[in-house]
Structure formats: structure tokens, C-alpha cells
């Protein structure tokens, strides 16, 4: 009974979505009958668009927002128990938890997909998945992990922490924030439905013409990705505005915690570049549904257009993933080395430099695509230039650890492992940026290993560091330190064994996205598969630790790490209004070891009280 009332907004959203689905599908049928195009795709598109609108209105958009637009008073939400996590709430901390939990679940699902793939690849020939099933599994693994990589930090960590770290009471647009979360569940539903619509065998990159001619599952994927893009744009907009406008008094640009800077940089990319992938996906949808000719060669269409548009987003997108990971890693390294962040200003400059460069490197994904050879050298040069700002980040990491008082807790171990893994990811990136070597390595397991080193070894390790580091702040309880260390060592070792072996497979000529391979590669593939099973198992320790500690961990103090940044200056978990007395920032966040230095002082009582809601 209680559960039903708690899930009321979701049930309402679902029923509205059903109504929308029927209306949209009806319109779609009307459209197909008028245009004599015998196709189910317009029905899917319109049905989905209306179902999405229905879902959003039902789940809370109408009550919290829509009513205002027709001149009615809005209805607020209430509740402090578990039900608040299932509502369209505007509290950034709840939205942060919603994001984090959602994407940890998505990560585990995508992890299961990867285990299925590795079972299939254990031996040549068919093991458990047919070719189409394999391709769908591989594509689902790809897009779900991309979503995890894009949204876990910006959506989860930044939502929970960024307003706290800059001393604000919420983000700039709390309702847009809620909207950008509640847009995500339909994405997950669509993706999980793709196997029932014939799957999609195009990978997450969805290159046309393949993605124009294959099963309806592809269309579901395109709509899902497009919807996710909308969420990503809204998130970027929200964080930029929040950082620019809502900093506490005294929180100058030079005093922003490095994590906030990294989100600022990533949000710039997410705000702008995402429009390009949205347009790329729209082109495929138009080709499929309305029969346009973006990619039909006989009408002057050209698949290279999609590749350019797609990578104009998707290369900067890896910096949406990795910049916040730099932020988390540097944040953790600083606090657990008990030393100021080395070369803070240079790191900020490096972040912004990476943002700038990220927009002019995209065509290094296209060295073997048949684009004009004259473009090879310019893109090779810009791509390799990225190693200079990235080098600054490494210098900062090493300079911070140097001579510190290293407190080797679980988050610190993950942050150090991040440096190691990302180093390998970065160095192998050079091999792919250089045209001569890339001609051989393009679309090869070397690429697979490389981007897993940057995204998994880099970002996911940083996410792990962040999960453990901020766990007491989010839940008010400590995680189990011993289990955390067991998780770290098992994950670190199995991870490296798995993916170092993949470099070898790539050099030996294993090309990527294949369900089958020549028998000569059987040994290395069996090795990778077995290692990957252990890697997958290590996540069970994480899940057990998180669930157990959230339920029964020891109660955490406000600042268990004695860290200086603002989120630790309020209770764990923080109250609804974040700071009982709005803080005033008076010093740098990382001045460890500077005698008498203070980052923030609570505002004088008289000044603060009138601002409380």
C-alpha cells in the first residue's frame, strides 16, 4: 500500500505515456495511410514522441511546471522518506542520487552484456550468441556504457556536489534539472526494447547506410540516443549557469575547486557539441522514416557527412567523460596527499585548452574513411597537441603526491590507479593519432583496449574513487574500508590483465566488433575472456559494499576526511537548504599546510538568516 502511494508519480507517468503512445501511434497510422508509405516507422516515431511527452507530464512536469504556463498555481512535492527518490523533485541532492543509482544499475547491465560478449568470444565459432544477437549485445554494451560515462559524473556527482562545493543552495534551474533526469528512464526502456524489434547491429556509432537499412531496433536506438542528448544539453546548460551565477560570496574563479572547473569545461562541450550528434541521428531518422537521401549515393548522399557530424560530437564527448574524471582524481589526490593541488592555475588552463582542442580533432577517427588525404596532417597535428595540456594534468597529479602525506584509503588508491591507467590510455592514443600506425590499428582491438583504458581505466576508476570518497557525504554512513580495498585490488589487477591482453590481440590482427575470428587468435581471446570474468566479479564486491554500508554502515561525521572544500563544511547528508548559514569564502580550497589558512567561514548570523527559506 505504502509502496503504491510512493510510486504514484511513476504510475501516473506510465499511464499518461500509454495515452500518448496511443495518440501518437494513431497519428502515425494516419500519416502512413495518407502518404502511401507502407512502413511502421512513422508509427514508432510519433508513438514514442507522444509517449515521452505523456510520461514527462504525468511524472511531474505538469504539476511542477506546466500549470504555471496556463496561469494555475504549481503544486510542490513533499516527503522525506524513500518516496522522494521516486518523485519529480527539484532538490539537486536527490536528483544526484537518482542519477547515481540509475547509472550504477545501467553500468551493471552493460557489464552483463560485456560478459555475454566475452563468453561468445571465448572460442571461435558460435558459442551462445548468433551474429545478430552478438552485434546487438555489443551495440547495447557500447551505448549503455557511453551513457554511463557521459552522465554518471555530470548527472550524478556534479548534481549532488557542485552546488555544495560553490556554496549554493541549489542549481540555477532546479526544474530543468529534474526534467533532465526524468527524461532518462524512457531512454533505458527504448534501449532494452531494441532486441524485441530485431535488435540493432550497427554499434553505438550507427554509421549509415547500415543504420538506414537494418531492423526497427535501430530506430529505437536512434530515438533513445536523441532523447539522451536532450538531457545532456539541459544538464550542461544548468551547470554552466550555476557555476557562473550562484557562487557563494568570495568564491572567485581562482578559488573554485578543481572538480567544479572540470565540470565547467565538460559542460561547455556538452552544451554545444551535443547538438551535432542530435542532428546526425536526425538525418538517419529522416532517411529511414521519410525516405530522404542524406546517405543514398545515387542522389548525391554521402555517409562521410554522418561520420564528420557524428565525430564532431563524439570526440569532444570523450572529454565530457574524462575532464570530470580528471577533476575527481585531482580532488581526491589533493585531499589525501594533504598538500595543495600542484600548479592549480595551469590545470585550469589545461582544461580549457583541452576544450578548445577537442573541437578540432574529430577527423582522426576518419583516417581510413576515404576523406581527402590533405586533411590527414592537420588533424594529426591537432590531435597530438592534446598531449600537452594532458601532460599538465599528469604533472599536477605527480606534483601533488610528491612529498605529501599519502593517506592510502580506497578512494586514494583508485585515484592513483587512475593516473597509471590513464597514462597507458594516453600513450597508446599516440599510436592511433599517428596516421601510419592508425592505418593498421583502426577498427582493431588495439582501439578497443585504448579507449577502455581511457574511459574504463580512466573515468570508471575515477568514478569509483568518487563513489567511495563522497559516499559518507551522500549517505551519511561510512563504507567498509577493508572491502573497499579488496575491491580495489581485485578490480585493478583483473582490469589491467584483461585490457593489456587486448592490446596484444589487436597487434596480432584481431579486428573489433566481430562475433567470430580466425582460429589463430583463440588463445589470446580465451585469456581475455577468463580475465574479464574475474573483472566482472570484482564489481559484486562493490555492490555488496555499497548496499551493506548504506543500510548498516557506521554513521559518518560531517567531515571524515578532514577535507577543506565546502561540501564537507555541512552535515552528512546535508540538510535541504545545504548550509544552515550560507558560507563566505575567504581563501583557497587547497591550502593544506599553510599555517592559519581558512577556505570558508560561515556568514555572520545576522546576514545569513534573512536568506533562509
Amino acid at each position, binding site marked *: 500500500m505504502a509502496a503504491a502511494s510512493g510510486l504514484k508519480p511513476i504510475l501516473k507517468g506510465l499511464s499518461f505515456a500509454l495515452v500518448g503512445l496511443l495518440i501518437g501511434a494513431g497519428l502515425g497510422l494516419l500519416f502512413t495511410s495518407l502518404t502511401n508509405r507502407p512502413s511502421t516507422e512513422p508509427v514508432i516515431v510519433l508513438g514514442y514522441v507522444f509517449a515521452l511527452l505523456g510520461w514527462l507530464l504525468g511524472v511531474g512536469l505538469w504539476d511542477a511546471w506546466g500549470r504555471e504556463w496556463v496561469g494555475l498555481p504549481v503544486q510542490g512535492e513533499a516527503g522525506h522518506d524513500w518516496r522522494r527518490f521516486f518523485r519529480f523533485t527539484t532538490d539537486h541532492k536527490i536528483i544526484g542520487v537518482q542519477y547515481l543509482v540509475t547509472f550504477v544499475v545501467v553500468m551493471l547491465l552493460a557489464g552483463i552484456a560485456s560478459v555475454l560478449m566475452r563468453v561468445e568470444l571465448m572460442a571461435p565459432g558460435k558459442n551462445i550468441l548468433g551474429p545478430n544477437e552478438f552485434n546487438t549485445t555489443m551495440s547495447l554494451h557500447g551505448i549503455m556504457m557511453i551513457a554511463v560515462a557521459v552522465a554518471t559524473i555530470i548527472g550524478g556527482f556534479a548534481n549532488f556536489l557542485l552546488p555544495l562545493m560553490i556554496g549554493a543552495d541549489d542549481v540555477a534551474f532546479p526544474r530543468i534539472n529534474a526534467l533532465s533526469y526524468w527524461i532518462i528512464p524512457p531512454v533505458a526502456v527504448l534501449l532494452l526494447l531494441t532486441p524485441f524489434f530485431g535488435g540493432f547491429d550497427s554499434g553505438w556509432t550507427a554509421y549509415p*547506410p547500415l543504420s538506414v537499412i537494418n531492423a526497427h531496433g535501430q530506430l529505437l536506438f536512434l530515438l533513445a540516443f536523441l532523447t539522451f542528448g536532450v538531457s545532456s544539453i539541459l544538464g550542461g546548460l544548468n551547470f554552466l549557469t550555476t557555476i557562473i551565477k550562484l557562487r557563494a560570496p568570495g568564491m572567485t574563479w581562482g578559488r573554485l575547486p578543481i572538480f567544479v572547473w572540470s565540470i565547467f569545461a565538460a559542460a561547455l562541450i556538452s552544451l554545444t557539441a551535443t547538438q551535432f550528434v542530435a542532428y546526425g541521428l536526425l538525418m538517419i531518422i529522416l532517411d529511414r522514416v521519410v525516405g530522404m537521401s542524406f546517405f543514398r549515393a545515387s542522389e548525391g548522399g*554521402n*555517409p562521410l557527412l554522418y561520420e564528420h557530424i557524428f565525430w564532431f560530437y563524439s570526440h569532444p564527448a570523450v572529454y565530457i567523460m574524462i575532464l570530470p574524471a580528471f577533476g575527481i582524481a585531482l580532488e581526491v589526490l589533493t585531499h589525501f*596527499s594533504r*598538500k595543495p593541488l600542484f600548479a592549480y592555475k595551469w590545470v585550469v588552463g589545461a582544461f580549457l585548452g583541452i576544450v578548445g582542442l577537442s573541437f578540432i580533432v574529430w577527423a582522426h577517427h576518419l583516417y581510413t574513411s576515404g576523406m581527402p588525404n590533405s586533411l590527414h596532417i592537420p588533424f594529426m597535428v591537432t590531435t597530438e597537441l592534446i598531449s600537452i595540456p594532458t601532460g599538465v594534468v599528469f604533472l599536477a597529479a605527480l606534483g601533488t603526491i610528491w612529498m605529501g602525506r599519502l593517506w592510502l584509503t580506497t578512494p586514494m588508491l583508485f585515484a592513483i590507479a587512475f*593516473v597509471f591507467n590513464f597514462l597507458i590510455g594516453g*600513450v597508446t592514443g*599516440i599510436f592511433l593519432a599517428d596516421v601510419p*600506425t592508425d592505418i593498421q590499428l583502426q577498427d582493431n582491438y588495439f582501439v578497443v583496449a585504448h579507449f577502455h583504458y581511457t574511459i574504463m581505466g580512466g573515468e570508471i576508476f575515477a568514478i569509483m574513487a568518487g563513489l567511495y570518497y563522497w559516499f559518507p557525504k551522500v549517505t551519511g554512513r561510512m563504507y567498509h574500508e577493508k572491502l573497499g580495498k579488496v575491491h580495489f585490488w581485485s578490480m585493478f589487477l583483473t582490469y589491467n590483465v584483461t585490457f593489456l591482453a587486448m592490446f596484444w590481440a589487436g597487434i596480432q590482427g584481431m579486428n573489433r566488433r566481430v562475433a567470430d575470428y580466425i582460429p589463430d587468435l583463440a588463445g589470446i581471446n580465451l585469456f581475455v575472456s577468463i580475465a574479464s570474468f574475474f573483472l566482472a566479479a570484482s564489481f559484486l564486491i562493490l555492490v555488496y559494499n555499497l548496499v551493506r554500508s548504506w543500510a548498516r554502515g557506521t554513521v559518518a561525521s560531517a567531515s571524515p576526511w578532514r577535507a577543506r572544500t565546502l561540501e564537507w563544511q555541512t552535515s552528512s547528508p546535508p540538510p535541504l537548504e545545504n548550509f544552515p548559514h550560507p558560507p563566505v569564502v575567504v581563501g583557497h580550497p587547497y591550502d593544506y*599546510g599553510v599555517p592559519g589558512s581558512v577556505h570558508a567561514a560561515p556568514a555572520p548570523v545576522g546576514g545569513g538568516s534573512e536568506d533562509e527559506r
Partner: protein
Amino acid sequence: MNRHALIVLLLWLLLAVVGEFLVVRLAPGMFPVVAAEEGEIVDNAFTFLMILAVPVLAFVLATLLYSLASFRSRGTPSQDGPPIHTNRPVLFVWFLATIGLTALMIVHPGITGMRELADRADREPDLVVKVETMRFGWRITYPEQKINTFQELVLPVGKHVRFEVTSLDVLHAFWVPAFRMKIDAVPGMVTTVHATPNRTGGFQNDPNFRLQCAELCGIGHSVMQVPVRVVEQKEFDAWAAQQSKLARRSN
């Protein structure tokens, strides 16, 4: 400070020397068989990049390992570390090193390697092979010999070959692992790639002699491959003659 730095320096040198030794000793045996002059350029570039990468890896590894060993605190640290905010000489050296390395790898093997490959591409080919791809097969045409086949790619050794690649349906990619050369097959477009096979061999003896699709094209992607055979010119001529006879007979 100086003592720490000195130890890291020595550790770095040690790791770097061992690493370079391993690269130089092991690199030649790392790669699968290479059967084209262009492939050797690619492998040399790869080896050179490994030689460049080793000192970088060794430096970060030495610093990390030494810091972990000597700066770790037992339990909760009771006091903070020294408040070092930045260090101009270190930054200067670091920028010098990263900019220098970046410039080096752009010039060599990046630009020089590309130049070598481009020079070969400009050369007049001894043989032109047209490759049309479709899900999930290859139609290989020898215009001069007026033959075509779906079965295998046969090439004479020592001859500079230009492949003119196009696709009849979706994106594919022409890739022969033993040649290290790759180019996408794009519908509506002819892309070219070159190879000069310098070693005879065939798929039976070495699976790297295969023409493999390297761009995801659907359910048959992983099995979209045909054998490659590199033979002496005489043998190639005989094969071509036999093929054209077969073609006439079937007409």
C-alpha cells in the same frame, strides 16, 4: 627533496633502460608476418613510438612507485604536507619535454611516415585491382586481365598494386593484415589504397594473408573475408590465364 629526486631519477633511468632494451629485443617478434613494403613502414613507426613511449611510462611509474613507497603515512596523517603550490623550473622543464616529444612524434613517424606512404601512392601502379564490396563478399576485378573473382585475392610478388575500392551497399573496409593497409569502402565513392607485396605466401600457411572487412557491416561482418595469395609473377600469369579461360567457358 634532493635525495628523493635523485632516487627517482635513478629509478627512472633503470626502468627506461630496461624498457628500451625489451622494446628493441622484442619488437621485431611482436608483429604478425609482414608481407608488403608499406607494412614495414607501419611496423617501423609502431616500434619508434614504443621507443618514445618507454621513457614517459618509466618516468610516471618511477615517480608513482617511489612516492607510494616513501611518502605514505601509516593510518590517518596527523599533519599536512609542505604547502608547495607550484614550481616554475619544474613546469618549464615539463613543458619543454612535452612540447618537444609532441613535435617529434608529429614529424617522425607521423609526417615522415605519411610522406613515404604518399610517395608510394603517387607511383605508377604495376597492377590495378578493383574491389567492390557487398554484404558479405568481395568482387575482385583485374581490369587489365579482364577477369573477376569472388573467391580469392591473388597478387604477384614485388609489384606495386593499386586497389580501387568501392561499396555497393553499406560501409565496409578493405584490410589485409599482412599488408597493414586499410581503407573504407564507401558507396558512391572510389577510395584507393596501395600495397607492394614483398613476400610470397597464402592464407593456408598464414592467416594474416586474408582480405578482411574492418568496418562493421551487419551480421556477416566477422566472416566477410577471403584468402589472399601472393605468388611469383609467372604463377600469377598462369592463374590469370586459367581464370579467363574459365570465364569464357561459362559464357
